C-alpha cells in the first residue's frame, strides 16, 4: 500500500506542472498584458505607473522567453511569493491569508452539514425504496439540486433578511458593525447569525448530490449477499442497516467530498459576493472586477492545488477505508 501511496504522490508532479503551466500560459496569452504594457498603460481605465509596469514585467518575466519566465514564476510560487496586488500594493499571499479563514469556516461548515443531513436522507430513501417517502425525498432533493445558489440567496434575503417581509437574519457581512465592542459570547452568536444564510446557500446543493449518491450506494449494498446473511441470522433490521449495510455503503460516499470541493469554491465566489463576506471568493470577485491579475492568478493556482490535493486525499482515503481494493 505504501508503494501505491508513494506512486500516487509522485503522479502529482506532472499535474502540478500542468496546472501552473496552464495558469502561466493564460497570463502570457492574455492580450491585456501586452496592450497595457505597450500603450503606456491602461488597466481597466486606471493608468499603470512605470513602476507598476516594471513590477509586472518582473513578476511574469515578460522580457524573457516563456520557459525561463515560467521557471522563475514557479520558483517564486514554491516560496509562496505570488507578487503584489495591483490594487493596493500588498502582497498577494497576505491578502489571501487574511481572507482564507472566513471561506474555510463557511465552506467547511457547509460540507460537514451537508454530509450530516444527506446521509440520513439517502439511507431513508434507500430503505423505503419506491414508497411515497422515497419519492418525495427524491423529488425535493431534485428540486434543490436544480435551484441556482444565487437565486436561493436572493429569495432568502428577500423573505427572511429584511426587506418588506420577515427580518430575522442579517443581510450582509460576517459580523455586525459594532462587533468589536461585543463580548465573546454575543460576538459568537452574532457571527453564527451572519453565517446562517450563506451556509444554507452553500449546503443545499451539495446536500442534494450527496444524498443521491448515498441512496444509490445504499441500494447497491442492500442487494448484496452479506446483507441477506445478516438478515438470515436474525439480526434486527436496525442493526442490519446501521452496522452492516451503511458501513459498506459509506465507502464511496467519503470520497465524494473531493468532487464537491470545486463546486463549493465556485459557489463561494457567488455567495460571498452576494452576502459581501470578506472571504476568498469575494477577494476573487473584487480582483476580477479590478483586473488585478496577480491576485486572480494566485487564487486560481491555489484553488487548483487545493482541489488536486483533495483528489489525492480522496484516493488515499479510499484505499485506507476499503481493504478489498488492490493497489496495483
Amino acid at each position: 500500500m505504501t508503494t501505491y501511496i508513494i506512486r500516487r504522490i509522485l503522479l502529482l508532479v506532472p499535474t502540478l506542472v500542468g496546472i501552473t503551466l496552464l495558469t502561466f500560459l493564460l497570463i502570457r496569452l492574455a492580450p491585456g498584458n501586452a496592450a497595457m504594457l505597450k500603450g503606456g498603460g491602461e488597466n481597466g481605465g486606471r493608468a499603470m505607473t512605470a513602476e507598476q509596469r516594471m513590477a509586472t514585467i518582473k513578476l511574469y518575466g515578460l522580457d524573457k522567453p516563456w520557459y525561463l519566465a515560467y521557471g522563475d514564476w514557479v520558483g517564486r510560487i514554491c516560496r509562496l511569493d505570488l507578487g503584489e496586488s495591483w490594487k493596493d500594493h500588498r502582497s498577494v499571499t497576505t491578502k489571501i491569508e487574511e481572507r482564507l479563514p472566513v471561506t474555510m469556516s463557511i465552506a467547511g461548515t457547509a460540507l460537514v452539514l451537508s454530509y450530516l443531513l444527506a446521509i440520513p436522507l439517502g439511507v431513508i430513501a434507500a430503505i423505503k425504496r419506491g414508497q411515497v417517502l422515497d419519492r418525495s425525498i427524491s423529488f425535493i432533493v431534485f428540486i434543490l439540486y436544480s435551484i441556482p445558489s444565487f437565486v436561493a440567496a436572493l429569495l432568502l434575503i428577500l423573505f427572511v433578511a429584511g426587506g418588506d417581509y420577515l427580518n430575522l437574519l442579517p443581510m450582509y457581512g460576517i459580523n455586525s458593525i459594532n462587533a468589536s465592542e461585543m463580548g465573546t459570547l454575543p460576538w459568537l452568536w452574532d457571527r453564527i447569525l451572519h453565517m446562517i444564510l450563506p451556509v444554507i446557500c452553500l449546503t443545499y446543493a451539495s446536500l442534494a448530490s450527496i444524498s443521491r449518491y448515498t441512496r444509490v450506494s445504499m441500494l447497491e449494498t442492500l442487494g448484496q449477499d452479506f446483507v441477506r446473511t445478516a438478515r438470515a441470522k436474525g439480526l434486527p433490521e436496525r442493526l442490519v442497516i446501521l452496522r452492516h449495510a451503511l458501513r459498506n455503503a459509506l465507502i464511496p460516499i467519503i470520497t465524494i467530498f473531493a468532487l464537491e470541493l470545486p463546486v463549493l469554491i465556485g459557489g463561494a465566489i457567488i455567495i460571498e459576493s452576494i452576502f459581501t463576506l470578506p472571504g476568498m471568493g469575494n477577494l476573487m470577485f473584487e480582483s476580477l472586477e479590478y483586473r488585478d491579475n496577480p491576485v486572480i492568478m494566485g487564487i486560481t493556482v491555489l484553488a487548483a492545488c487545493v482541489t488536486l490535493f483533495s483528489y489525492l486525499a480522496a484516493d488515499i482515503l479510499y484505499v485506507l477505508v476499503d481493504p478489498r481494493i488492490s493497489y496495483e
Partner: protein
Amino acid sequence: MNSAVPTSETYVQRTWRHFYADSFARNGLRIVIVLFIVAALAPFLANSHALIRVADAQWSFPIFHSLQPIEWRFLFYVPLAGVIYLCRNQFFARPGRSILYLAALIVLIEIFIGFTHPINDTSNDRDRPASFKLMPMIPYSPIESTPDSFSPPSWKHLCGTDSTGRDIAARMLHGARTSLSIGFVAQSIALTIGVAIGGLAGYYRGWIDIGTCRFIEIMDCFPPLLLILVAISLFDSDKGNNMFYIMAVIGLTSWTGVARLVRGEFLRLSALPFTLAAKAVGASDGRIILRHLLPNSLGPILVAGTFGVASAILIESSLSFLGFGMQAPTPSWGDILSDARRYIDFAWWLAFFPGLAILITIMSYNFMGEGLRDAVDPRLKVK
C-alpha cells in the same frame, strides 16, 4: 398484442418508449420545447412594434423591420429542429452523414446571419395612431425604457418593471433565447470536443490515452466557474457582451466529463467482438469509430449532453449575475437577477420571475437527463 413475439423495435424506438413513459422526463421535454418555441417567437410575443398596422389605407408589418440578427438566428434554427424531428428516421438511419449535412447547414445559416446588421430602433407603435393595429401580447421591447420604473406586477406590466422602467415580462421572453441558445451551443461545443478527444484516447490507447488523461486531470483541478471567470476577465475587454465568446468559453472548459465518458465507452466497446470483426473485414479506423463505436455510445453521450445543457445554462446565468456575462441592455435572466440584487429590499418581482424561469429550465433539462439515463440503461432491456 405482441407481448410474446419479439418485435422489430429499434434501439431508438425502445429508448424513446421508455423515455416517454417517464412522466417527469416527458413533461421536462414538453417544457423545454415550449421554452424553445417561446424563445423563437419572442420578438412576436413581446415587441413595441405592431404586428400589423393599417394607416392611411396602407398595410404595414412594422415588426419585420425591427428584427435583429439573433432573431433571425432563432427563426432559422427552431424550424430546423422541427424538420430534423419530422425526418428523424432518415436522420438516425445514417447519423454520420446527417451530422455532416447538419454542420454544413449551420455554417450556411451563420454566414447569412453574418450579413445582417443589428438595428437600433427605439420607436414604438403603442401610441402611434392607426385605423387598425395588432400589437403583440406584451407590447414592450426588452430594451425599451418606460416612464414607470419599479412598477410591481400589474395587468399593464405582467411581471413588473425594473429601475429604468423596462418591462420584465418582455425581458424574460427575450432572455429565454440568451439562456437557451448559450446552453445549447456551449454544450454542443463541449460535446464535440469531448467526443473527439475522448474517442481518440479510448480508441488508440497508449501514449495518446495517457497524455489525454493527464490533461483532463489538470483541467478538472480548476473549479469550472473560476476558470471561466478568469478566461473571460483576462481575454475580453469589450467582448463581454459577445454571446459567442461566452458560448466558446463555457464549451472549451466543460468538455472533460464527456471526454472521460466517451473514452470509457470506447475502451469498453473496442474490446468487444464486433469491433474485432469490423477490423477483420478490413474496415478503416475512421469507419470503425464513426459507424461502429460512436453510434453504440450515443446513449450515454446524449445523457451527458442533456445534463450538460442544464449546467451550461446555470453557468451562463451565474456569469450574467456576477456581471461577467451578457450585460444590459441585452436581456438575460441572470442580468435581471443582478439588477434585483441592488433593489432586493422591495422589488421582489425582479428576483422571483427570472429565478423561477432559471429553476424551471434547469429542472426540465435535469428531468430529461434523468429520464434519458433510465431509458438508455441496458439493465432496463430485461423488462
